[in-house]
């Protein structure tokens, strides 16, 4: 192993003089009076390696010794990760002693003593390679596949496999023979460097399947797809985190990985407290049982914050390779970009816009490209859907992180301060936001087939209604209530009906917080039906009270069980109101 000696220290950037070969992104440990601080090589100049330390460097001195490990930053993969709370370097936070984090304390992400019910899938004599399924163990409600390590790219022969039974993760469950005839014993654990994508799939088609989130303004208006990417920019107080929490609670995914990246600790505590209590609407189990939280809050070391999103993505890729539908959420990717900026600054690189590194757009798009829907070797499918939040400085969307992300992500959910101020939650701006997937013919076909024959047309029409309503409102504001034709008021209030019933959603109401697609389809068709009607008004003063009446009834419908007796009663009431002014 290469060894080195500390030569210089600037905050968490440490210069190390090395005595042997060293590679970019290699991990090393700096010995500070018996405490080992983990660090990553980020630049090499001659015999000096520049390393970023994942901990505080207080007290570090020139002359302290460094040991290199010959591998990059890795995660340890195997059964037992579900429901865990990790830090950005995949240390199990629950295993750490003490109220305060101790520098240099690294804990095992897996439980080596835990036992699992192994069922073999492959048979002796099978030709196998990296990512192939050897067997499975039940992890919570997921069938966790034990795979050939992803790095085994050549063709191997399965010599023997353990019979069905109970094993520890460190027990040998298979012996494989490499092309040279060497035998290799495998257990349930494998390691993978986080900066390298896991590519154990045969094909990555364009995504086509709708990914339900239960949030109407997303599902109906700007749908997310399985394996799609999206981002949520918004000023502070606009509800980014609330929206992401709401998606994580209701999304139709097999599992959720939540990367709390450089955000408030109390928000993560909220998840720690709530998720073990909340029910997952699909399985009836607790939400925590399908969740992994990667938590690197804003006061934890900056370099580990940068690593945390990669750790989360790699764990997501591992589970995707088992044929699972994974939803990855990161809050917030701006903090990750800021971590990159801090390091770039300390390395005295020439800065790009707003002092961010020049390659920020490339880094962001590389990261987003790791999401996606894939066909696995056995024909199964898996997906990673990725939604990140962005915290634009000063709420201004013309800043480098938002612009870089806009180029990479296919869905854009812009949170608007004006909507947040007027308590129109979720504050996603219906006109600025978009989903590129709505333009994919595959997605259009899927929606028209599975939701409603005219769905895509109806959604486009809804957007037109909203836009027309906004234009009418602007005219009313300029010319005054009686300065515009009556139809302007009608247009405006029709858009309000769509806004208040379809777009706005009460995230704290038991029923309204999540709407299944069938119900979304029913409500949209109902509202569009009303919008297509002509009503008779004597003066503009009649318009608002009439629509308010309809809105109130529809809102009550949103609050009760779909198709229940109350729902029917409100619907009948609505029909009567419609008849009051409907043009004959």
């Amino acid at each position, binding site marked *: 192993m290469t060894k080195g000696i500390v*030569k*210089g*220290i*600037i*905050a968490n950037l440490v*210069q190390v003089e090395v005595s042997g070969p060293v590679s970019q992104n290699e991990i090393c440990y700096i010995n500070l009076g018996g405490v080992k601080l983990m660090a990553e090589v980020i630049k090499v100049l001659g015999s000096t390696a520049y390393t970023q330390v994942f901990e*505080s*460097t*207080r*007290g*570090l*001195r*020139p*002359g302290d010794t460094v040991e290199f490990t010959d591998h990059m930053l890795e995660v340890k993969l195997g059964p037992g990760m579900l429901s865990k*709370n990790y830090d950005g370097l995949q240390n199990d*936070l*629950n295993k*750490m002693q*003490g*109220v*305060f*984090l*101790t*520098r240099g304390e690294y804990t095992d992400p897996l439980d080596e003593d835990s036992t699992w019910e192994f069922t073999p899938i492959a048979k002796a004599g099978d030709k196998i390679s990296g990512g192939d399924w050897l067997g499975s163990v039940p992890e919570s409600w997921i069938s966790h596949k034990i795979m050939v390590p992803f790095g085994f790219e050549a063709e191997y022969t399965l010599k023997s496999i353990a019979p069905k039974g109970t094993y520890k993760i460190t027990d040998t469950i298979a012996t494989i023979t490499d092309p040279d005839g060497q035998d290799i014993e495998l257990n349930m654990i494998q390691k993978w460097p986080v900066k390298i994508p896991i590519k154990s799939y045969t094909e990555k088609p364009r995504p086509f399947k709708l990914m339900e989130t239960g949030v109407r303004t997303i599902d109906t208006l700007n749908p997310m797809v399985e394996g799609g990417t999206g981002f949520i920019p918004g*000023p*502070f*107080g606009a509800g980014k985190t609330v929206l992401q929490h709401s998606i994580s609670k209701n999304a139709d995914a097999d599992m959720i990985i939540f990367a709390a990246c*450089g955000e*408030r*600790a*109390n928000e*993560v*505590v*909220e998840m*720690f*407290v709530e998720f073990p209590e909340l029910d997952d609407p699909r399985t009836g189990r607790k939400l925590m049982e399908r969740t992994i939280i990667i*938590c690197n*809050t*804003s*006061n*934890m070391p*900056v370099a580990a914050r940068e690593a945390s999103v990669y750790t989360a993505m790699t764990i997501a890729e591992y589970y995707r390779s088992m044929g699972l539908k994974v939803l990855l959420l990161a809050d917030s990717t701006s*903090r990750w970009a*800021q*971590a990159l*900026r*801090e390091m770039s*600054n300390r390395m005295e690189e020439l*800065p790009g816009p*707003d*002092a*961010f590194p020049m390659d920020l757009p490339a880094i962001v798009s590389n990261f987003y490209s790791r999401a996606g829907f894939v066909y696995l070797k056995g024909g199964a499918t898996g997906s990673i859907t990725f939604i990140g939040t962005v*915290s634009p*400085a*000063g*709420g*201004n969307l013309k800043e480098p992180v938002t612009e870089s992300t806009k180029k990479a992500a296919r869905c854009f959910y812009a949170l608007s301060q004006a909507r947040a101020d007027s308590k129109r939650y979720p504050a996603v701006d219906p006109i600025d936001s978009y989903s590129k997937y709505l333009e994919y013919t595959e997605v259009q076909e899927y929606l028209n087939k599975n939701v409603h024959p005219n769905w895509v047309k109806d959604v486009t029409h809804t957007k037109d209604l909203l836009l027309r309503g906004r234009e009418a409102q602007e005219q009313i504001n300029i010319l005054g209530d009686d300065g515009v034709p009556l139809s302007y008021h009608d247009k405006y209030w029709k858009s309000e009906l769509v806004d208040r019933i379809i777009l706005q959603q009460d995230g704290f109401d038991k029923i309204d917080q999540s709407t299944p697609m069938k119900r979304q389809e029913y409500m949209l068709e109902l509202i569009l039906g009303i919008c297509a009607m002509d009503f008779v008004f004597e003066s503009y003063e009649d318009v608002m009270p009439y629509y308010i009446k309809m809105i109130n009834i529809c809102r009550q419908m949103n609050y009760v069980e779909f198709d229940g007796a109350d729902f029917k009663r409100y619907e009948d009431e609505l029909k009567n109101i419609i008849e009051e002014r409907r043009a004959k």
Partner: protein
Amino acid sequence: MATQAFQKIYTKLNSITKATCTVKASDVGNDELATVAGRLAQVVKIVGDDVTLQIFAGTEGIGTDAEVVFFGKAPTLKVGSDLAGRFFNAYGDPIDGGPDVSGDELEIGGPSVNPVRRKQPSELIATGIAGIDLNNTLVTGQKIPFFADPDQPYNEVMAMVALRAKSDKIILGGMGLSNDDYLFYKHAFENAGVIDRIISFVNTTEDPTVERLLVPNMALTAAEYFATEKNEKVLVLLTDMTLYCDALSIVSNRMDQIPSKDSMPGSLYSDLAKLYEKAVQFPDGGSITIIAVTTLSGGDITHAIPDNTGYITEGQLFLKRDTDISKVIVDPFRSLSRLKQLVIGKKTRTDHPQVMNTAVRLYADAANAKTKLENGFDLSDYDERVLDFAKEYSEEILAIDVNIDTDTMLDIAWKLFQRHFNKAEIGIKDEFMKLYWKKA
């Protein structure tokens, strides 16, 4: 601090800037303290044997032959129960003429709390100010700043909040306080007769600017001592964080770092988060709550300092002068306490959330009516009534000098509702109407 026998002494400076100097030295640790010509300094950069020190008191008059003495340790604070009632400077040395504090020496800026060991904040902090207790309830373990323009009476309001809040210790971290404001705090604390539960770390405008970088960490280290060792509820007041950030930008500028937005260092977010995230509810009952002041320039919250602060803190409070009653109120529209949901209607009366929202909605209607009036439109009967309501609401509840408990605030709100409106206009759930809407 006296020189001790085993300490290393160097006497040749290679370079001197306005805030830093560089000396050739060996076996020096990162973040280590030193004195340069008797002034306190801290190691901020080591390259080979070139050690760069940040001199807190500035480099005026420092010669290239100045004596540099390294202490072999990071900045520390001596903590003990006799911190209580004392005034200190940014280095933790007494400035009230009293004796030195005895006790353990703790490194300032210590490690973070493991997020899984934190408790969810759930204990309300009552201040008697309706703009806070009723509309933006504070919770122990919260961090929240006042966003105020320099002409607003934020120091007065903060002192009032501190004195009325039920906490075991109040720790003041004053950064760039004018001498007048420092004396104001001192007198306010003395007059209230609570001096024994107050600890102050003060850097005034008379002191060197860079010194104030130590103040928040001194205050928070003392807070951590009382919150973890004594399981006390500690309230930390930090004023003014904008001046703290200015000092950060000075140092980063002297070290040739590339500035990001508004000439602030690129690490501003992390620097502020490290301080604010010290606010915590500990599992054993102790807590640290941070109330800070961030002064704005012309109310601009998109500037890098308030902007980064807003992304870190759990809400923000705005002050506003209500012209109807010529008194200061906490602005009900722009202020926000993100943690209030954890306590209102749970630790307070169940009608609290609904009464709060209704009153703010009516107050908003009054603002619209005022605009109408200014634009020369006729007012409806409802407009007249909301205007009357808004005035009484400001006067009897919101005004900062009103000091009542939350139940009384709610009772007065109900009284005002009933005086000016009918049941339908209030629109509160029937279960509460039955309880609190008194029959005429």
